[in-house]
């Protein structure tokens, strides 16, 4: 099944997911973390209630001094750990590193398996784990938008597909810096590779052939193509190069699905060059001048 067309009940599905989230209090518990705090910023351990209900976790950093500050919400990549906001970013931004359900520090009662998370409950869109994980990302955004140290009109979301989906479901986000991942046209792309995490879809299809069609159908609810038109944030999309699975050509339909221009950046496959590009773009957007960079990036 192709995910080029959104499921007929796409809006109903996500409307229900967001309604469920909205029905629950955020119930933020903010605990100072002196070990991780430094001369530039205070660090806090944050616990929030998300859909389920489920308690999720995040590391919040707040610069010393007068706010409100522009804010970076890191939704993280595919893995159990998301680092605390960097030493450099902490100097000018509020940062929030989300540990969504299943990740470390948010792994009770549900501990994600890697590999495994990507297909947890995938045979039914109502039980698919990412329905809750996307809600977790939105909950983190909601928390930040209400925080007194945060400039609510200057929240940037950074990450893979989760960042894009969050920006669509929270159109008040100011900026989106996204590197598309495994949800984009998964039914077409996954069978062309043996690389994880895509291979998790292939593993599932091989092991449970009678549920493969249901899996691809569920994934259609998460294809960023169907979210892109709702994004209002200024957007940078990092693509692979022409030899990569997610090349500019492959991602062209996703770019076209946005209702506004998207700045495309081809990854240099250099954490240094890609990191400088991201830091520079964000600093420029928020009028911070030259970005604060690690010594080896200067």
């Amino acid at each position, binding site marked *: 099944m192709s995910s080029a067309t959104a499921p007929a009940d796409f809006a109903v599905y996500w409307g229900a997911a967001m309604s469920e989230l909205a029905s629950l209090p955020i119930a933020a518990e903010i605990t100072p973390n002196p070990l991780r705090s430094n001369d530039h910023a205070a660090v806090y351990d944050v616990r929030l209630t998300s859909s389920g209900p489920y308690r999720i976790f995040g590391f919040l950093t707040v610069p010393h001094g007068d706010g409100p500050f522009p804010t970076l919400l890191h939704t993280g990549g595919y893995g*159990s750990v998301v680092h605390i906001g*960097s030493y450099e970013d902490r100097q000018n931004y509020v940062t929030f590193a989300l540990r969504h359900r299943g990740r470390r520090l948010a792994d009770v009662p549900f501990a994600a398996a890697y590999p495994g998370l990507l297909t947890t409950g995938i045979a039914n869109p109502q039980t698919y784990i990412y329905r809750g994980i996307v809600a977790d990302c939105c909950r983190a955004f909601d928390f930040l938008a209400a925080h007194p140290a945060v400039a609510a009109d200057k929240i940037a979301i950074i990450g893979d597909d989760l960042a894009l989906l969050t920006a669509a479901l929270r159109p008040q986000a100011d900026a989106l810096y996204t590197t598309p991942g495994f949800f984009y046209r998964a039914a077409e792309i996954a069978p062309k590779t043996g690389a994880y995490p895509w291979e998790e879809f292939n593993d599932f299809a091989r092991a449970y052939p009678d549920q493969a069609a249901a899996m691809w159908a569920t994934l259609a609810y998460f294809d960023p193509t169907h979210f892109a038109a709702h994004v209002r944030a200024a957007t940078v999309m990092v693509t692979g190069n022409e030899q990569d699975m997610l090349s500019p050509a492959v991602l062209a339909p996703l770019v076209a699905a946005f209702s506004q221009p998207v700045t495309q950046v081809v990854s240099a496959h250099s954490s*240094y060059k890609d990191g400088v590009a991201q830091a520079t773009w964000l600093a420029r957007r928020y009028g911070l001048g030259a970005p604060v960079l690690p010594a080896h990036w200067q």
Partner: protein
Amino acid sequence: MSARNLVDYGTAVVKPADFDAFWEETLARAASIPLNATVTPVPLRSTPTVEVFEVHYDSWDHVRVAGWYCLPRQRREPLPAMVFYPGYISEPTLPKGYAAKGYATFGVAPRGKLRSNARFNPGYPGLLTYNIVDRHTYGYRGFYVDAFRVIDFLLAQPEVDGTRIGVQGGSQGGALTLLAASMCPAIAAAAAQAPYLAGMIDAIALTHSYPYEEINEYLRLHPGARDAVTETLAYYDCHNFVERIRCPIIVNIGLNDDVCPPETGYEVYRRIGSAQKQLYAYAGHGHDSNGYGHAAIVDEFFADLLRPVPVTA
């Protein structure tokens, strides 16, 4: 930041007088613990060309350690083997792709990683400073042993040619690659990328990036512990292990690496004892250390030395 400064930085790491005795005792105690390895098929992750197994074995303090073991279905035994060591925050790879190239492959999850964290779970951040004031109970003591015992497991497998074992990894995986190549003479070839845990006491003055920043954070909260931390780290620093390496080895570093500063990469490479070593220092690259472009060099390096027979569909 000029290349000259990076090359000549040197190190403040001092090798403790009882370093060798400490590790001889550690390995002797570890050797007294039977592996008690179990190998369980994992049909969910297996393919028509590669069988996947989940392995568990006992290690330091009898902690049970997990790993993924992959074998080509159509194999001409004995197989060369390839160990993949994981990074600091990443979970171990499930190396089916390399198995299809004709290797018995192993992706290890040392203690604290998922599936190996029932009894030891310092978290991330956390592992780097777990009992950092005491070399005897420092978290990496058992973690290193876990990495070494993969080789014991492979040597016990009838389908593995024990003279053709390779190891590789990036960042913490690069460090474990250097450490295993130092301490496990059976290893025939090694490829370390952006090695971490090398020149640790130097690195904390060079960068504020995680994971090394964990040590800076610890010392801010415990300023009186600096001497004890320095002493402990000396027992675990790659700088003090790698003179033992005798196998062919390649190392790649990024000259703009903010995570594992290149100053430490040059120094650890200089100390490697192998006569067959080569450094690839990539300008314009950070902690990725040009892994994207360097992968083909790694593949060719191992193929030449370990002679795998690729799987035919």
